[in-house]
């Protein structure tokens, strides 16, 4: 690549410094944030990086003028990070960036107003992304990736800076969401709890006061946590909130929300339109939905098997597996309807053999005992109203509403 001349390099670096200094003095957060946004790979930033690598002695320029040298602790590591970033040394870039970020929040603390929040957002985002990339680099070198963890503790510090009574508190949720991302990635979800607690219980925070995008993100992650806990009503509430407040143009985000919301809704007995699944490319749920509609146990099992890895990774496998009981319910219901058509007077007495035969048609090889067990479980879970007569091996259905609908309530457990 053609390196700029020394004068050109000098000019670019000085411009960058001037931009920084002006942005701070005019509180122009937009241009300030631009200066930090490495991952945007914006041409001006890259050219500055090139100039730094060429010029090498940027620190002299920083010290040159009082205007810059007062931010020397911020700018010097920032330049170093930019240099390393440009040369592809992401671990070094991360280290320098963390140093820069620490210096910046130190300065940020001194600013009364929250004008620089956007810049802080950029930093929080950049440090996370940089840490992820540095970890990838470390892992490929056989070293233990730990930068993301470090970024997590840095963001906790940032959270502490923001969690106060001042105007900066509205930035806390953004940082929280970045933390969620880190924790979910690291699999240390339990660490979310403390942040959630302070967000949801601290008086200084009014949830509605936060920016909408942060609220959506927050609800999405906390909804996912509820899915893990199999607390379906709560999960439904949070994910629904996220869905309804999500920018409708952000289809990717909507899809991510639906990915969890659909299983939650299914387990509450609410089935999605096929068109929805198609629109958001969630066809892996299609067969599950069909199985629920038809009472086709085989289809459900196939669907689960087919997308097992996917479901396991996203963490909805167990949720979907529990739909089995609803499928049984649907199957029994169908048998009941057929019996009713043939002989309404005896329709409420379902012989076990019939059910076993039906399952056999579905290629589910289960014997009487097993089916009997499932029937008792259905009754026990209140998916079927009635009782089981062991002597005669008959399921005696209630004459009133023998197959109660869930209607948004979770299956009894």
């Amino acid at each position: 690549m053609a390196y700029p001349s020394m004068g050109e390099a000098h000019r670019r670096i000085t411009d960058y410094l001037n931009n920084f200094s002006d942005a701070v003095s005019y509180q122009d957060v937009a241009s300030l944030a631009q200066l930090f946004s490495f991952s945007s790979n914006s041409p001006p930033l890259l050219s500055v990086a090139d100039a730094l690598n060429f010029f090498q002695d940027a620190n002299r320029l920083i010290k040159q003028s009082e205007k810059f040298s007062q931010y020397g602790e911020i700018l010097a590591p920032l330049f170093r990070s930019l240099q390393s970033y440009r040369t592809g040394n992401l671990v070094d870039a991360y280290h320098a960036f963390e140093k820069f970020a620490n210096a910046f929040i130190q300065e940020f603390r001194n600013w009364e107003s929250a004008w620089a929040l956007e810049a802080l957002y950029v930093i929080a985002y950049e440090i996370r992304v940089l840490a992820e990339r540095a970890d990838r680099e470390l892992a490929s070198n056989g070293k233990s990736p730990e930068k993301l963890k470090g970024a997590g503790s840095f963001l906790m510090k940032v959270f502490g800076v923001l969690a106060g009574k001042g105007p900066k508190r509205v930035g806390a949720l953004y940082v929280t969401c970045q933390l969620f991302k880190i924790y979910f990635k690291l699999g240390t979800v339990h660490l979310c709890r403390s942040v959630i607690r302070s967000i949801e219980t601290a008086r200084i925070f009014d949830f509605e006061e936060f920016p909408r995008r942060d609220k959506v993100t927050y609800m999405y992650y906390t909804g996912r946590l509820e899915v893990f806990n199999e607390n379906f009503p709560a999960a439904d509430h949070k994910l629904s909130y996220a869905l309804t407040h999500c920018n409708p143009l952000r289809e990717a985000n909507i899809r991510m929300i639906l990915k969890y919301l659909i299983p939650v809704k299914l387990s509450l007995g609410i089935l999605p339109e096929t068109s929805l699944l198609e629109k958001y490319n969630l066809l892996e749920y299609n067969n599950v939905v069909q199985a629920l509609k038809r009472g086709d146990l085989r289809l459900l099992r196939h669907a689960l098997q087919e997308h097992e890895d996917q479901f396991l990774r996203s963490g909805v496998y167990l949720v979907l597996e529990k739909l089995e009981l609803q499928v049984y319910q649907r199957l029994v219901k169908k048998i009941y309807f057929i019996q009713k058509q043939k002989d309404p007077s005896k329709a409420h007495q379902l012989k076990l053999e019939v059910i076993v035969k039906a399952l056999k048609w579905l290629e589910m090889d289960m014997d009487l005992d097993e089916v009997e067990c499932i029937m008792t479980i259905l009754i026990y879970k209140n998916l079927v109203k009635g009782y089981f007569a062991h002597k005669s091996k008959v399921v005696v259905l209630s004459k009133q509403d023998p197959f109660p609908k869930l209607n948004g309530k979770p299956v009894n457990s």
Partner: protein
Amino acid sequence: MLTESTNQDDDEMMNQATNTQTLASVEPNSVENRYVINVSQGQTSLYVASTTGSEAASWNTYGVDNHFAENASFSNSTYHHVKHSEPSSRAVQDGSNATSLATSSTLGATDTQPDYGGYASYSNSSDPYSHGSTGYQGYYSGYQQQPNPSYSQPVGAYQNTGAPYQPISSFQNTGSYAGPTSYSSTYYNPGDYQTAGGYASSSYTHQTTTWNGGNYANYTTHHPYSNYAPDTSGTYSAGNAGANSMHYQQHYKQWAEYYNQTEVSCAPGTENLSVSSASTQVSQLPGVSGGYSTSNSQAPTTFATPWRPESSSSQTPLSQPGATVTGAYDSYWTNGAPTFQNQHPSPVQPLFVKALDTKYSYSNFQEQQNTACPQIPNLQYPMAQQAPQNYQPTAQTVQSSETQRLSKLQIQTNPRIASNLPLGLPKLDREGPNNGVISKPAYISVSQPKSSEKVLSNDATDSVIKAGVFPKSLKNYVQRALTQCKDEKQSAACQEIMKEIITKATNDGTIHTRDWDAEPLFQIPNTDMADKNSSQNPTPVSLFSKYKKSPTKRSKSRWEPLPEEKSVDKLGSLNNYAGKYSSKVHLDEKDRKPTGVNYEGKSDVMKKIRFPQMELKSASRTVQRQVKRQRLADATAADNGDASSDSDKEQNLTAYYSGAIMLADTPEERKRRENRSKRFEKVQGNRAESNHFKAKNAGTGNLYARRTTALVLSKSFEDDGSRAVEDIDWDSLTVKGTCQEIEKRYLRLTSAPDPSTVRPEEVLERALLMVQHSQKNYLYKCDQLKSIRQDLTVQRIRNHLTVKVYETHARSALEVGDLPEYNQCQSQLKILYAEGIDGCHMEFAAYNLLCVIMHSNNNRDLLSSMSRLSDEAKKDQAVQHALAVRAAVTSGNYVLFFRLYKTAPNLNACLMDLYVEKMRYKAVSCMSRSYRPQVPVSYIAQVLGFSSSTPTNEGSDEKDSDGLEDCVEWLKAHGACLVADSNGEMQLDSKASSSSLFMPDPEDAVAHGDASLAVNDFLTRTSL
């Protein structure tokens, strides 16, 4: 004692008086006398070189009694010097004692640093003394409290005596230490006082008091001490009252002897330290003394001067000896004392060792200052040799005539001293150009000590082998052994060992027939180790000593496997020696049970051989102990504080100090040690004496020591600053086991592992097989497997065997439902499998899955462990089973669950067992909700796995009936309502039951929540 008392009365006069007195006293105990002579000679010779006539004379006077005829002229000159110098010299000695104490305590002190540490420690101990009587009193009181007062006394004596020894150590270090001098001076006085007190108590309480007075008079400055002395005497007297007092006294006497020797040796060191005092005393060679303090080269000259003072002290020794020696030998005492209790012979050994050590150190010193000294040694040596010979006869006569009646104690003390002296001589010989000449005396001395010991024990038997009796080869042998020793401790230990060997040889009459030249050298027991092991074994210090030899290298070398050039070379030889020694020891054991103590040395030796580091560790461990003791000590707490503060000051002086503190013997520590050793004695009692004192105990002690040493090592590294922890070569710390026992009980390591108790891989393999085929119960197996695991871990073996062991353990833990143990194994296995080591990966993946399902109830864990399963794993039968179980559990399908239970592969059923109760309860609540009106119990029994029959063949009624009864019982226990129908068949009344079901509290529930912690269970476990 009488002589001692007189000495005390007139400090200045003491020397003279002592001479006469010593003569008298010596006479009683021929052996003792001989020793004394030897010592004096050795010392004198060394010193004489520098001082020439005058010093020698002084020595003679001391050692004197015995040698007098030969060295008479010398003695005269020395006399005067001694008198003048004594106070100062004593002071010096005290300081030296302090140092020696430190060194002895440190053990590890192979290098100068340890010595320094000793100093520091000493200062601590000494400080309390100097500071005030209170500290002392406290100390004493503490002693008194101890069950064996006599012990305590020795301790005190040791402290005092320590001074002389220290000089030696100081000698080694002298070059480096200019500053210590001040220390020594302060300490000396206290030390002397103490010794006096200790002495009195040990030997003759009444006399002691007088002694004390005398001492005090001399050292007016130390008023507190004077107070102190009485106290000590009182305590001591109590100790004497004890039945054991006799033995102890003897021991003490021996000690005293040692001390005397040590004093002599120390004197030089002390002089160095207390330059001023030395110079005054040494009027003849003032310039020399001054030089000494400043630098090594000068040292030789100073030596002479110091010696004289020392010699004076040494004379006093008879009176003072105990005192002087005590400080240095605190550790000794502890070791020795315990041993004494158990075994008479053993006590002697310690003494011996000490003497050797002193000599050794001395030798080192000489080596350092080689150029200056050579002439001196020659002169001295001949003297020494002659002296012993002469001495013996006199001693014998004396014994027969006077002694026994006056006081065995005194006599004993003298002999001991004497023994020490002879030992010292050998060393000197070595060092000196005239080895041959010197060697003889040394030899004699060694033999004599033994005899003296015997005499002591027997009282009546004075039969002393004359110096001439010993073959030259034996002398050479002794010399060789002594050259091994680098520091006092080692030499002391060495002496002890040699004593044993020689006594043994004399006993079985092989002394003249044996080929001593071909005799393998033993390893010098580590005194510290001995302390640790308490009475049982004086551990070989040799390795340490080697390291110690090179003063300049010091601390660093300590931790390094092969610290220095010299040390390296010697190490090899030492190792060999050690091995041989161990073998010898065995022999000895066979011969004498009492010596058993020494034998622990074996294991130590072994360890040392392979792992020189280990020794270091042990040393450090002792240090740690000391620290612990300090904490524990109540009465002495104040003292400790003082000591520590003092030590802090000293820290500045010595960079090595940090290590030293730990190592330093504080009075409390000593007490503790003694207590400990006593405890062991009590517990083990005869066992210890018999050859098989528990290997376990020894092992554990060693292990402990090692680990502590490791810790200390790391700590020292940190403290050092020059060394980072990363610099520790952990690989070199990895143990390579040597134990061949297949069976080994598990004992949680509290210290670095001891290779002699660690089994190598082949043995472990056999051990595993043994466990696998063992018919014994789980607790036994668990114990064995844990010990195997431990051995694997400490040897860092991670291979198929490791996997097998963990798998075996995990399975046996599963069989009995020991989940905690299983989890430990499982987590290890996970790591091992991840390292690519083959094993029953699938089987354990299934177990893991089941474990998560049944017991963690954490969906995220379950999901992650399921998502981690490879496709290959999912095809595995066991894993499939586990997955099916999971499905059954999540869906609540009890029928499926119990079916899977019956078809479970491997030990999956064992894990499922732990969930059965829950599953049954769930099932019955489900049934009672769903079934109407009734459910036959037979059906329940069949479905819920009470009967072994599968649902398809319900025909087997007999089995079913059993299951039925169980089921009925279970249902009743859980509050189900049962009714009999018209056919007499039991039915579950589901409607009634639905509201009455409950989960009974587990029968084995205990208040603290863990049934395995129940007392009864614990007892059964421990009894195994």
